[in-house]
């Protein structure tokens, strides 16, 4: 029955591509979280009136974030080909897609981290300082827990964007559902492959959204 409706779909290949997409999304989301968080915290702490207020660092970090956030991802991939080659000696495969995915997504997430941190009640930070907390303590014990829901919902948005990025990366041969949809679906004109790939990507996005929203709601005790 299904074979008749979707004559060209090779389910083993489809499953493999799905795993590749999941792998790239998960790895990129993980690195993006760490790098984006670090960038966001640096941006926040060096912004005017904060403890490490520093125009130079703030401006440089801000410029880096804004530039990489603004470059369309498909162009970023092409720009980063030499960098990736230098780093991994290849531009094919899931791992080769990671540098571009992370460099594309981390600045995007950093911006959301900055917004989340700015929304923390200033009084709470002041209270922590009045108790004699070090800046590192404030970062770990005030910044992160007090902005956790916003960090998490930002990460959800970022992870979903990354699913889209992996599909674009697929076009230059990163593998995953993007490659499958492009090579088998588009170039060989097998519309059913494109359709199934799209449905699987949608399912992945919905699951990320659902899990992210659930965790965010559960974390928010306000």
């Amino acid at each position, binding site marked *: 029955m299904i074979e008749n409706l979707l004559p060209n779909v090779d389910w083993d290949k489809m499953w493999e591509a799905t795993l590749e997409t999941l792998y790239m999304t998960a790895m990129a989301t993980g690195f993006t979280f760490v790098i984006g968080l670090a960038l966001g915290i640096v941006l926040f702490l060096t912004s005017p009136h904060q403890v490490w207020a520093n125009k130079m660092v703030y401006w440089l970090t801000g410029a880096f974030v804004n530039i990489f956030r603004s470059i369309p991802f498909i162009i970023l991939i092409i720009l980063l080909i030499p960098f990736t080659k230098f780093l991994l000696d290849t531009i094919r495969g899931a791992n080769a897609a990671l540098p571009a995915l992370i460099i594309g997504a981390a600045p995007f997430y950093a911006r959301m981290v900055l917004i989340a941190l700015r929304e923390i009640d200033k009084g709470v930070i002041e209270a922590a300082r009045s108790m*004699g907390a*070090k800046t590192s303590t404030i970062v770990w014990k005030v910044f992160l827990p007090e902005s956790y829901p916003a960090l998490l919902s930002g990460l959800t948005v970022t992870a979903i964007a990354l699913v889209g990025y992996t599909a674009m990366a697929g076009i230059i041969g990163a593998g995953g559902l993007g490659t499958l949809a492009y090579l088998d679906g588009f170039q060989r004109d097998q519309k059913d492959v494109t359709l199934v790939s799209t449905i699987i990507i949608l399912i992945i996005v919905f699951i990320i959204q659902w899990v992210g929203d659930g965790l965010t709601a559960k974390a928010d005790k306000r």
Partner: protein
Amino acid sequence: MIQLQNLSKTFATGNGQLVAVDNVNLTVEQGEIFGIIGYSGAGKSTLIRLLNGLEKPTSGSVTVNGQEISSSSGQALRSARQKVSMIFQHFNLLWSRTVEDNISFPLEIAGISKANRTERVKELIELVGLTGRETAYPSQLSGGQKQRVGIARALANNPEVLLCDEATSALDPETTDAILELLVDINKRLGLTIVLITHEMHVIRKICHRVAVMEAGKVVEMGSVLEIFQTPEQAITKRFVAQINGPDAVSQTIAHLIEQYPSGKLVKLVFVGDRTEQPILSRLIKQYQVEVNIVQGNIAQTQNGAYGTLFLQIDGNELAIDQAIHYLHEQDVQTEVISHD
């Protein structure tokens, strides 16, 4: 305990320099509840933030318990802050932590072990009367309860000084009274020095020993609460005192009172300090053949005793009235006969 010397703080703002604290000199004694009152923008918060180094003075110095806070930084300042803790108008609790974890926070900062933290948190929860609410989140508490958490948190590291920035301004009158009582209780039990900022005179009246009045960054008047209530000198102080006594109702209505109570004698008593606690009136009535009629009065309790005025109409035969008034004079209550000749 706390010495402020020639303390000034200037902020650079968009349109020039703003002097928030202007050459303030004052000393707060160990174990004292010291109030600072002033209208919005007077510089109270800036002043109190100078006391724990959240703000650096432009000039002058702040010394707390022998340590010069104004020149401390880094670890020395952070350790000092554990002994000068603070409570806030908007409580400033971490919403992500339960009551007990909020109280535990300063202990974590001080590097206290888990076991000792748990024990100390339990004591503090009992001290502020929050038993049973340990695992609630701030969002599940009333304003008064939140401030109790704030107080418990502030007391966690056994501070020597407690700074209160409008600690009751977000609370209703009854809750305010309960929190103020808790502060007095803590002050007595733990011998804690308290510096309290407010724009409400009844807070000063209720719990402070001494008070400084601030206007435009300057301390314009300072003294014991009783003194300030009795003989306010500056116009702004008079306005604050009137918050409690009413807008000089007394002097305006004396003429009116005389008209209303034409017989006998109208007497004005001024109570200061302990006198109000003695049964002067009941003795007066028991010992002399006179009718005593309370015409008007207001007595307020302060931490240094009560003060207030009372208008009495004393009626009866001439001799008895004279004897009664003589008795009042003997009680060293300020007595003044204001009527009928």
